[in-house]
């Protein structure tokens, strides 16, 4: 039974991906992409990776979908240009052969991976009591491979600043992104008012349970960001200007706390990002809390884009 379910799911994912690539029109393509993300989230559940399923649903389908939709609504025209830039059939056949070879090579490689599979699962679980967390993925993200997570948190700051730096000079300091009119009536604006309080609770819940169950700062932060975006497009919340110091501290707080706790390790433990025994969990939770805030802020700002209205 579960095999049938998996095959169905696999075919659906490939089908939706192909449809998304081939469909004319950008809007349907984005919808196809969101459906693709939802299906992938189901695949992740089938693979037993619930943490990833949460991330895929929130970030892969939800936030990326909104990001793409914003671009679709604002990019118009250019059909002649696009036609002129379309590769000729021989070029497309060549590309198809090349990509087919890559896909085939990958499939062959995947099918020839050694058996039994090498795995760090036992190692990762063995040290968890030292950290006081129950979710091995949190252990990997916050301890064993903490440097990856720290650099990734810094990448988010890079991205925000890079996006802002694309602004026209005269717009510097202004509010990021377009301004949305207040939607004062109608079912949509009602939903936009009702949903955020629920979403904020869910977001904090997902971030909080991350230490012991699937969830964590990236998933929770994304949900909080989604609620912020909702309030923003409904005209209920005005984003602070890019010159706002508070906004900037919100974006860098997570990585700074992360680094601060890391450096503390030099003094009270065995070095950078090492947690003293017994204090690991509170320190991890402290980093997670600050990171949830920064991830949420960074995602809202990345969706909003550079400042584009007069200051």
């Amino acid at each position, binding site marked *: 039974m579960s095999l049938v379910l998996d095959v169905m799911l696999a075919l659906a994912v490939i089908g939706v991906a192909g449809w998304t690539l081939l469909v004319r029109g950008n809007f349907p393509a984005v919808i196809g992409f969101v459906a693709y993300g939802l299906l992938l989230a189901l695949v992740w559940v089938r693979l037993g990776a619930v943490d990833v399923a949460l991330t895929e649903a929130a970030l892969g389908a939800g936030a990326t979908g909104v990001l793409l939709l914003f671009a679709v609504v604002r990019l118009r025209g250019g059909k002649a240009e696009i036609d002129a830039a379309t590769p000729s059939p021989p070029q497309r056949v060549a590309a198809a052969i090349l990509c087919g070879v*890559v896909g085939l*090579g*990958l499939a*062959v*490689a*995947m099918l*020839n*991976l*050694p058996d039994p*599979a*090498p*795995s*760090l699962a036992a*190692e*990762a679980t063995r*040290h968890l009591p030292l950290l006081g967390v129950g979710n091995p993925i949190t252990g990997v993200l916050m*301890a*064993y*491979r*903490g*440097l*990856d997570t720290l*650099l*990734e948190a*810094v*990448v988010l*700051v*890079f*991205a925000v*600043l*890079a996006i*802002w*730096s*694309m*602004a*026209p*000079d005269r717009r*510097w*300091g202004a509010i990021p992104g377009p301004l949305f009119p207040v939607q004062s009536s109608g079912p949509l604006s009602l939903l936009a008012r009702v949903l955020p309080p629920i979403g904020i609770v869910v977001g904090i819940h997902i971030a909080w349970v991350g230490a012991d169950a699937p969830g964590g700062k990236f998933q929770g932060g994304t949900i909080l960001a989604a609620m912020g975006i909702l309030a923003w497009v409904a005209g209920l919340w005005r984003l602070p200007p890019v*010159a706002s*110091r508070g906004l*900037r*501290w919100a*974006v*860098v707080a997570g*990585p*700074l706390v992360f*680094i601060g706790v*890391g*450096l503390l*390790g*030099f003094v009270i*433990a*065995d*070095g*950078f*990002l*090492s*947690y003293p025994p017994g204090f690991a969990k509170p320190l991890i939770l402290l980093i997670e809390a600050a990171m949830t805030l920064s991830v949420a802020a960074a995602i809202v700002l990345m969706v909003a884009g550079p400042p584009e209205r007069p200051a």
Partner: protein
Amino acid sequence: MEATPGGFLLVLMLVVPVTGLLLGFALGGRLAERMALWLLPPGLAMAAVLVAGLLHAKAPVVAFVGGWAPPLGLALRADGLAAAMLLTTALIIAAIALFARADYTTAPGAPEARAPLAFWCFLLALWAALNAAFLGGDLFNLFVALEMLTFGALALACLDGKATQFKAELRYLLFALIGSVLYLLGTVLLYGAYGTLDILLLAEAARADAPTIVAASLMTVGLLGKMALFPLHLWLPAAHAGAPPAASALLSGLVVKASYVLLLRLWFWVMPAALLLAVAPILALLGAAAILFGSLVALRQARLKLLVAYSTVAQIGYLFLMFPLVAGSAAEVAERAWTGGALQAISHAFAKAAMFLAAGVIARALGHDRIAELQGAARIAPLSVLAFGLAGLSLMGIPPSGGFSAKWLLLQAALDSGQWWWALVIVAGGLLTGGYVFRVLSAAMQGRSAPIFPLAPVDAAQERVALGLAVISVLLGLLPLGAFGLVLIGR
């Protein structure tokens, strides 16, 4: 391998610029600039101490982040190659910061402006990313470092906000993203096959089976795309030539070298020798094609900056001649080729940074960078033309210069290992390089009947920085060869 004392230095080399970037971004305005300038001396000092320590101990420095040893944890490793690249990076970043003070300064009390804030933050960001890329001991950690590098490089290159820049940098971004994805596919397969992504642990375990071969091919193609090795160079000239001078110098001098060092790690550490022997000649052949093609196209450029960018395409080619000379050669020949390759990467970094900065000064002073109309440039910006010429000497491989030592070592290794055809390519490349450098110099040195005035005042400090970098690229050739034993530590 165990963690060694002094590992905290490696961590600080990542954390210091990152913290500077975060604080600079949060505080904004003039403080971002202050932050970057304040961090230059400690950054340089850390790199110098690391190199001195390595030369003293003759062994790599290793840190396990958080005390977790691989395969579960992440290692940072500074071997000789990494230490040499870290010092090169620190020096060039410092030079570029000094150069850029004239362009991106914020007066006390002045409101924050876009370009200065972005410039100083991303200078620190690129510094952190480069350090991460040279120190990383884990293939996935290096993926994150490469992404940081791409984002930072992209933002710096678009700093002027011109449509041509957006277009060129989008092309760069697409190449870089495809490159990253291919690289990431390789890491998946390697993890699936060996259960670790640590470079040294992989080196002990690697077999020449199907997953490894597919992983190696995907990662190599991805990294070559990021480095713009012929025929994947299409994005580079416009992306590097269109950026502001300080950014071009960073992109051409340093950023491509991060992918190069990673490629060396992949082939000379991770992959089994049998695979390397099969692939090395192909890589060198592409390198040779890059040298000849890049130089010929550079010779025909009408614009100075594009000429310098095509020169990068050519000089990257030299880096690949090292592969067949190191692989399968006797120890002494291999050491010579290895040193030559590393020295080429370092001397090109200095020379190319100098060239782009000098070209930037000249282009600003004249208001254009058309080579045919450079007459009088030597009178307006004499130091810049001198810097361009000295850097050119190093690129050509004329003694005494770093480029000469590098090419001489490669040449010797080619002859000693009986692969004389690569020697021919090196000589031909040097001649062609001479052609395009002299084309620029002869135009710039020509007098002009009418008196000439600079369109914008020439900043003497900027000229001196360009000259300083060019002088370093030449002086590298005067160092005794024993000094380059550094890059052999931990090989």
